[in-house]
């Protein structure tokens, strides 16, 4: 924060000092960019509440007129997406917990001990973050469909359970895939946090005779609560928003187990084109879970990104 003043301080002297041509220019730029980043969102949000006729006639940025306003799009979109919401959360929450937990464990094992070849293992994790998913799509489809058809093995059990249906078993391979591919990034996020902890913390526990797993449970887990928050938020957003694995492992957008990202491109599409009123309603509904998290935890989200960039 080189020259910046905190948001809260406000005094007249600084305000007077602020009124210069340069200052005004800076604020104009800030506002222009706010417009740039918000206009697609504003356009979408306004369109979500417009009737077909209003969509065709009005400026997308402007709010709907009294006659052009409708909640019909939203109702229709909600009906289309409600099952998919359940599917997405059913898949994304366990997948997030799994990858975050494994990531924390791996990071702990790789920061607190020193052994030859550790760097090689670390590089395996690092490279794993950056590899294109396309390089595993064909094997992934073969593995879950032909070699180890876990979904069809689980389907009877799922059918007899409450709340879930037998088709929800098809989400389990996707869940496991997300856990496996989430481990590298979660590991690196936790690793940079554990490296920043004072080494005396672990040393002291060691001298007291605590075992490696005891140190993890009693010292590291409690102290990494804030980092768990950061990684959880980041990872949940990634998994909920993911499309390619879902597209590969789930047969289609018309299947009952389809997740939100899979269904969205089909909502509001017809032979005559796209009904943007419905499409925009559906887009905002689909965005609600991550938008809520983002608005509530923007700082933690940014922190996750910063660490990833610095990896």
């Amino acid at each position: 924060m080189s020259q910046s003043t905190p948001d809260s301080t406000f005094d007249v002297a600084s305000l007077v000092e602020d009124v210069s041509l340069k200052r005004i220019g800076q604020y104009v730029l800030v506002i222009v960019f706010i417009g740039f980043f918000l206009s697609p969102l504003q356009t979408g949000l306004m369109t979500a509440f417009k009737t077909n006729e209003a969509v065709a006639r009005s400026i997308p940025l402007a709010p709907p007129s009294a006659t052009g306003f409708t909640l019909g799009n939203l109702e229709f979109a909600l009906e289309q997406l409600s099952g998919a919401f359940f599917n997405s959360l059913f898949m994304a929450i366990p997948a997030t917990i799994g990858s975050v937990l494994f990531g924390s464990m791996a990071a702990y094992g790789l920061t607190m001990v020193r052994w030859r070849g550790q760097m090689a293992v670390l590089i395996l994790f690092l490279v794993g973050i950056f590899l294109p998913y396309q390089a595993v799509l064909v094997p992934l489809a073969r593995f879950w469909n032909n070699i180890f058809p876990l979904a069809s093995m689980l389907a009877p059990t799922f059918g007899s359970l409450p709340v879930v249906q037998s088709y929800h078993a098809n989400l389990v391979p996707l869940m496991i895939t997300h856990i496996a591919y989430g481990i590298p990034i979660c590991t690196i996020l936790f690793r940079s946090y554990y490296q920043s902890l004072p080494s005396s913390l672990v040393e002291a526990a060691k001298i007291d005779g605590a075992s490696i797993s005891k140190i993890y449970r009693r010292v590291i887990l409690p102290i990494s609560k804030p980092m768990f928050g950061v990684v959880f938020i980041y990872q949940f957003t990634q998994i909920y928003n993911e499309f390619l694995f879902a597209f590969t492992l789930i047969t289609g957008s018309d299947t009952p187990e389809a997740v939100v990202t899979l269904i969205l491109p089909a909502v509001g599409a017809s032979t005559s084109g796209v009904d943007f009123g419905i499409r925009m309603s559906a887009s905002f509904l689909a965005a609600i879970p991550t938008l809520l998290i983002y608005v509530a935890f923007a700082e933690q989200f940014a922190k996750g990104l910063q660490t990833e960039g610095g990896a």
Partner: protein
Amino acid sequence: MGTHETTETTTQSSEEVDWETRLRYFLNSDFVRSSPFWGIPLFIMGVAVYGGMGFNIAISLTDARGLTPPDYSNLDLEMYGQVLGNEAFLTAAQNNLVLLVVFTTICLFLGLFLAILLDQGIRYNNTVQTIYLLPMSLSFVITAQMWLWMFNTNNGLLNIIVTTLGFEPVQWIGNPSIALGSVIFALIWQFSGYTMVVYLAGLRSLPDDQFEAARVDGASTIKTYLRIIVPQMKEASVSAAVVLMVFALKAFTFLYSLTGRYRPPNGTDILATLMVREAFKFGKWAYAASIATYLLILALGVIAPYLYYQYRQGSL
């Protein structure tokens, strides 16, 4: 590593016991004791990522297509040659490179610009940062829908602006010669907030006295940034660039959602979209697997120098 073993070594000195002691010592070492922590995740990730990659290469050496399982008895590089001889592949590779260079460069410059702007003591800079980063929290599937609407030829916001200014409406996605540019524009919208955040972290980690010293010397703000601050942003630039480039290589989701399902994208085909189309529409598994290997090599071409650089810097 208790006293128990040491007493044993001193009392008995035959070679066999010595070996046993070493084994015990090994089993008690931090390496073995910490191995459940890193070993289990390594195994899961290793099988899925590296095992999957090996499996992909194995399939790419077969002639697998359609519903018949791959036949591993007759392996050759035939598919790799076929891929290279295909014009669709060359076009996609070219688009990939354009996307890689243009998207990454603009994102870095815009991100740096925004970071410097917000570092000028702008009021509510945290709120502004949140707004600039907002697109990054949304799925590409979602942002693609919004941009489809922005790019719409008849009623899209962009064309309303264009026609208000007195020009003819533009086919942003429909015209193959500008479609890639439109895609890059939308991707910059989504990602420049990310580069901004990386640069802001870099700027804020610099000690304040550098600004003070420059000010005492009478340097202007612009000069201070160009001469003193920006050169120190090298590391942030490199890591952000790598993340952006890797993303550009796999910008599948955005393109797929924006320029449509399985039909060949209109001048915006990249290796990722080509690969998915060949695999999941035409069932040309071996062929698609070899495209994926080329993509993998490209990605490694970006990552390997970066990791080597980080390793040399001692910042891994």
